[in-house]
């Protein structure tokens, strides 16, 4: 059924379709409408789940963790400050190897306060052992949440699905909500795994010198995730006719300059790439959809044929620069590719990244020497 809904509503419908069993969440702008809608589904019985009205995001994640150790399918959603408050527990969730799925509505971190889109909140959590996806449309948000349950329940690793605050979360688009029977076929109840059980008692999560071994297992499974996520994506396409890839490329085949970015900025980049092509400039666009594990191979493959790369980050790591840029450079270094990478910081705190901004970025990559530093776009005068 096709419906005009916001991406936040797409999250809620996906969780309904996935038949989550325990949901614990705490409201925060711009995520609140997800919590409101889900609590409604649980109250009316549309979703046969326990909704826990927790007193903080910290407790939201703690409840998901313990419910998940019991074998329940769990969900939470948060944003920015809430995600930061969860930080300690994100490590617990992945360390206990729990298939928790979370939506994070990207928002800038205080201080100063800013309620709008900025990917620094989730990127600050990149080392917590969660898979991370960055979406571009309401449809992709819905589909990625459904995929995430399959992925997490196979790999026993938690998955964070990111969507930019307001720009995506509050934008209404047509979203195709598949038949429940189709969803059920693609996403059956979770396969059996080791859980807490009074008939077979054991202890989860104690102190150990085998820590390094368990981390190694996590590393192996993160590596496997790169292949497995592609397989799931392909299977998803067979059933629903849509796929997304770990990265999505546009006109990259013969491009001299490839713009690399994540989330909604990619759409604007494609419009500008079309314009450039009309003027005879060979510009391509690569959108990074999966950030953890980082699909370095899938990113380098299309890039290596280009002459220049410009990475546009709606995020930044003080003292280092754009976070996607650092990861892209590290991957290129890994394959001994000396391609010049230009770094641009744009759209922090929800600032619009317009077509003019992208054109300016392209112009700069032509004119400026590559000093290996980031260039900031859109500072207010």
């Amino acid at each position, binding site marked *: 059924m096709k419906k005009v809904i916001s991406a936040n509503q797409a999250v809620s419908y996906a969780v309904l379709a996935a038949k989550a069993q*325990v949901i614990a969440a705490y409201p925060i702008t711009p995520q609140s409408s997800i919590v409101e809608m889900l609590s409604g589904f649980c109250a009316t019985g549309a979703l046969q*789940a*326990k909704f826990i009205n927790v007193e*903080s995001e*910290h407790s939201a994640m703690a409840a998901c963790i*313990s419910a998940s*150790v*019991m074998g329940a399918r769990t969900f939470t959603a948060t944003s920015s400050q809430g995600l930061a408050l969860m930080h300690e527990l994100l490590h617990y969730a992945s360390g206990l190897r729990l298939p928790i799925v979370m939506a994070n509505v990207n928002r800038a971190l205080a201080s100063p306060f800013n309620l709008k889109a900025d990917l620094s909140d989730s990127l600050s959590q990149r080392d917590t052992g969660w898979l991370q996806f960055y979406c571009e449309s309401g449809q992709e948000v819905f589909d990625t949440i459904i995929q995430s349950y399959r992925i997490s329940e196979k790999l026993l690793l938690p998955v964070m699905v990111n969507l930019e605050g307001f720009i995506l979360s509050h934008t209404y688009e047509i979203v195709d909500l598949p038949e429940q029977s189709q969803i059920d076929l693609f996403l059956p109840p979770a396969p059996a795994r080791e859980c807490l059980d*009074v008939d077979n008692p054991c202890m989860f999560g104690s102190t150990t010198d085998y820590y390094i071994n368990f981390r190694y297992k996590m590393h192996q499974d993160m590596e496997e995730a790169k292949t497995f996520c592609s397989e799931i994506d392909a299977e998803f396409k067979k059933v629903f006719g849509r796929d997304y890839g770990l990265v999505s490329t546009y006109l990259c085949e013969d491009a001299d300059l490839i713009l690399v970015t994540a989330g909604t900025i990619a759409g604007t980049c494609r419009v500008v790439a079309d314009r450039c092509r009309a003027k005879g400039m060979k510009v391509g666009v690569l959108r990074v959809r999966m950030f953890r594990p980082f699909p370095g191979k899938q990113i380098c493959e299309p890039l290596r044929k280009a002459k220049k790369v410009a990475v546009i980050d709606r995020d930044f790591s003080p003292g280092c620069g754009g976070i996607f840029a650092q990861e892209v450079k590290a991957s290129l270094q890994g394959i001994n590719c000396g391609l010049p990478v230009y770094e641009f910081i744009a759209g922090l705190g929800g600032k619009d990244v317009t077509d003019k901004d992208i054109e300016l970025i392209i112009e700069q990559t032509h004119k400026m020497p590559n000093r290996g530093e980031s260039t900031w776009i859109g500072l207010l005068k």
Partner: protein
Amino acid sequence: MDRPAQIKFPIPEEELVYSGHTACPGCGAALAMKYVLKGLGPRTIIVIPPSCMGTIAAGFPFSSLKIPVLRIPFESTAISASGIRAALDVMGKEDIHVLAWAGDGGTFDIGLQALSGSAERNDNIIYVCYDNEGYMNTGIQRSSSTPAGAWTTTTPAPFVKDTPKKDIVRIMAAHNIPYIATASIGYPADLIRKVKKAKEIGGTRFILIFSPCPTGWRYSPEMTIRLAKLGTETGIFPLYEIENGEKYTLSSKRSEKPLRDYFALQGRFRNLTKENLQQFEERVEKEREYLKRLAG
């Protein structure tokens, strides 16, 4: 066990704690666990945050508890139990007790917010705080349960703690939860009776257990039970129950022993001044009057 007929007290024989655990000799917390699990039985799931009990439960690949255990973050004891309950509910499993177990640090301090959350929602869990009046696992630091006048490594002599112990029971009573009890490892039969009573009620139940710690309180380990009893006999740790936030029942008799007897046994009170002692006496007297009034 082949129980000698002479044993008079109503204590279940089944042990749900394995020997070989790593509590210090004479540990009150280990006894608290032994008694609570005797009361609850094997169909119990427990969550334990970082604390001495986390250590006593043992490191991987070992476990000293015969029930399922989840080791959880320090702040999250109550909500972790609530999450387990939620999962049991959706799975339709009803005959299982969910036990949240934390020290005073994990309860009075860092876990108070989550505990208040679970209590306000009246989540169906049993919360036990074993009270050893300090952060023992990290090396005897002050908690808000440490009494005034006590030495700890962060209230070093002569600058011992100058504020009284936080009254966690009143805080919990203000949540109007169905059942609250204070108990002591010095009185196992009373303790187990309270656990069994709690077990029969739904909603959030809170039990505070006085659990002397030889290592942190600086006394010789054989005195653990003596001290536990003295705590109650002197009126420092009165035993009572509160039902639905309003029905108070005292389970210990009027104290007769002088406070001095209790303090004298413990190295941590070596710096106690005359004024400290007097303040203590006044506070104990006030508390006794308060409880008597409420118990009617």
